[in-house]
């Protein structure tokens, strides 16, 4: 049903876009995404399969997160061209598909369906970010090739294209490793992260919000289905948390900084892959989507373009709601209780502990202490005194969403039990 809604809206709006005003397309897109979300909630916990398209708990939880990011993005944007909304819708379709299948070929199609719109979105403002988008495209194509090669080897090793087929031997391990590379690229895990800082910095901020939240959710849904070898996982996690956190220390621009932070977070999320616990990963992603989405939403209200760290100074005085919300987002990303990010970290880290990966766990914890330096730098900058610069108060929709996300981060921090059972029923 979710698939049908997304597909119908995408196709219909492709045609109607030529006659409707862009604002109308925006509303229709929001409606389509909301309907898809509603259909998801109505069928929550009820698996459904149609050929290789299988809606199970993982698919529902991660599609929900991806749709949240898409809704937020569309809500923030006022584009004069209707194609922007359509691209987001098509990408959301691809994300849902990627989260809802174990069949490698369908996964590849879904991966492309979500990537191609993103390449276009990354260059949305012409002339800017072209180099970054080219990098994104070339590396993305390479990653897809890795994925395809992995799928071929998987078929060679198991005689099946459906993930979860039993297999063993070096060919099987290599196949899983290649699939991991292909998806690790989308999830921005080091060492496949090189595109991330450039693309985040060069793309329009709402698009970055979409990339940082929805794409990650979809990629991790697929990663959950790939039974990654623990050694490879340990390497990815270790590199991601070290590279992400250390590189973020030196950044002077907020979007680039958050790009590195998203790499580090991909590393923390990958800790939950040790046991493949969808509940822990789902909760982590939920807190991450809320906090990162909130951060980028606030940045998009400051400037559609780059945001040097100085530009954040004094935000609290200009708009107390956005300032406080930004602080909450930073503290949640840092993982300080009583904010939701803490429970996300706790759950993901507990999975690594359960798998006995203590070395990686301690490394992740130490690096997250390092991250305090830049998260607090960002979060406290909003309180700093700054010379008065003209500031247009944030759009009502953006402020309402920021308030909701901030309150949710606090509420989930105090009562994580509110949603965890639902995530478990799904997962």
């Amino acid at each position, binding site marked *: 049903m979710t698939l049908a809604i997304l597909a119908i809206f995408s196709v219909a709006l492709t045609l109607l876009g030529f006659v409707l005003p862009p604002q109308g397309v925006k509303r229709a897109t929001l409606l389509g995404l909301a309907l898809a979300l509603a259909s998801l909630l109505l069928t929550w916990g009820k698996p459904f399969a149609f050929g290789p398209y299988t809606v199970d708990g993982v698919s529902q939880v991660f599609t929900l997160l991806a749709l949240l990011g898409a809704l937020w993005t569309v809500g923030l944007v006022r584009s004069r061209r209707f194609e922007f909304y359509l691209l987001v819708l098509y990408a959301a379709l691809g994300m849902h598909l990627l989260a809802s299948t174990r069949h490698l070929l369908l996964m590849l199609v879904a991966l492309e369906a979500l990537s191609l719109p993103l390449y276009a979105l990354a260059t949305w403002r012409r002339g800017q970010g072209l180099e970054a988008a080219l990098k994104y495209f070339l590396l993305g194509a390479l990653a897809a090739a890795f994925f395809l090669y992995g799928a071929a080897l998987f078929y060679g090793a198991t005689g099946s294209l459906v993930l979860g087929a039993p297999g063993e031997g070096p060919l099987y391990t290599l196949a899983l490793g290649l699939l991991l590379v292909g998806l690790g690229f989308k999830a921005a895990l080091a060492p496949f992260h090189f595109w991330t800082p450039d693309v985040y910095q060069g793309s329009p901020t709402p698009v970055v919000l979409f990339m940082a939240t929805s794409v990650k959710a979809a990629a991790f849904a697929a990663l959950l289905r790939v039974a990654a070898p623990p050694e490879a996982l340990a390497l990815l996690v270790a590199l991601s948390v070290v590279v992400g956190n250390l590189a973020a220390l030196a950044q002077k621009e907020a979007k680039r900084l958050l790009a590195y932070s998203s790499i580090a977070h991909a590393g923390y999320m990958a800790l939950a892959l040790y046991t493949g616990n969808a509940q822990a990963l789902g909760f982590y992603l939920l807190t991450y989507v809320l906090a990162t989405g909130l951060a980028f939403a606030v940045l998009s209200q400051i400037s559609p373009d780059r945001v040097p760290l100085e530009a954040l100074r004094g935000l609290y005085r200009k708009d107390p709601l956005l300032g406080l919300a930004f602080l909450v987002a930073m503290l949640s990303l840092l*993982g300080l*209780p009583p904010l939701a990010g803490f429970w996300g970290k706790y759950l993901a880290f507990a999975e690594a502990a*359960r798998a006995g990966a203590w070395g990686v766990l301690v490394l992740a*914890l130490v690096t997250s202490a390092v991250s305090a330096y830049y998260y607090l730098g960002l979060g406290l900058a909003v309180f700093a005194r700054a010379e008065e610069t003209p500031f247009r108060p944030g759009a009502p929709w953006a402020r309402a969403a920021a308030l909701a996300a901030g309150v949710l981060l606090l509420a989930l921090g105090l009562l994580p*039990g509110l949603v*965890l059972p639902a995530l478990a029923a799904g997962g």
Partner: protein
Amino acid sequence: MVVLAVLLPVVFGALLLLGLPRALGVLGAGLSFLLNLYLFLTHPGGVAHAFQAPLLPGAGVYWAFGLDGLSALFFLTIALTVFLGALVARVEGRFLGLALLMEGLLLGLFAALDLLVFYVFFEAALIPALLMLYLYGGEGRTRALYTFVLFTLVGSLPMLAAVLGAKLLSGSPTFLLEDLLAHPLQGEAAFWVFLGFALAFAIKTPLFPLHAWLPPFHQENHPSGLADALGTLYKVGVFAFFRFAIPLAPEGFAQVQGMLLFLAALSALYGAWVAFAAKDFKTLLAYAGLSHMGVAALGVFSGTPEGALGGLYLLAASGVYTGGLFLLAGRLYERTGTLEIGRYRGLAQSAPSLAALALFLFLAMVGLPGLSGFPGEFLTLLGAYKASPWLAALAFLSVIASAAYALTAFQKTFWEEGGSGVRDLAGAEWGFALLSVLALLLMGVFPGYFARGLHPLAEAFAKLLGGGA
């Protein structure tokens, strides 16, 4: 009741942060003090007012609180210190709101009977502390803030691994303290888990050489001393060693006990030494606090019932007198505009009551018999002597030194000739003076009453470590 006691300051703090007037905060602090006084006076022994609600039952996490003799005493001293601060510190409403918020989080920390919930409060209390420092601190606050945060987090995030290990490696079904105590860790796991806890708690004790965050933290905080008083109460390392780290992994503790005893004695001596050379009040009090915490830690690390009892009593008492001294420094700053010790002279001539109050607070810090610092210090050294006579002697030197630095500072400030006149105690400051002197005297004269709930805990602690009566 415990939950109410924890929530009361949090609610008032939140109201103040929303912009309600400061007077409401004083009312909140007062109500909190009265409630906690009532809880302490009516405490029946054992774990009273136990509360338990599932937080993440699947993962074995519960909102579990309870008031035993130890937490009841700390509830009283924390609420008292915050109330004193609310009375006299002239700060804006939001600042007081943050202080009340922090009070609530500290109370939750002391009442938590679930390891993960304890961790949540332990970390959460950091947020108001650093907001107070950042929003109201001095020139060099950014640097002080980063030092403080990085020290704290480098300690406490690895502690999360120890928290997970304490449950997973011991086979305990939940994070509840009673379950964890029933499944003590063994072998190598005990060592590593204890080390994880020890790092975090040594930073928050603080123990030499992990104390480097403390002096800048105090120097850069708001001169009113309110944030410093809260910071003093936040030094919960000794308590956390006693309640969690050592009982959960006694084997691990036994392997490093000698090292910890040595570090504690060294902290006591080093802190006293530097305090003697301090040029301003906040530095003096920061290092004096380090010295006192070293003594208190020595008591708990000695593993003897006297030592543990004394160490905890000293921790509770020092919250009041060190916090009170920080607030007093704030009063001096308001009158003279400086915190430098050499800049004041002869204040006793114009402000005799202020001088008398200062004398009480300083003498409590020195450990004069009859005031609140003495019983804890005495018992601590007695217990430490049983464990290690040499280290006890070393720590005893710090007690002598405390007389030197405290009395020198007092003498320079209040006696000697010259100096300009300042205002004597006035208004709410009288409340501060009477209440704190009363607390110092009562805690000094009736230590048995205040420590009545501590005895069984200290005995059980020593028994766990194989000593005790």
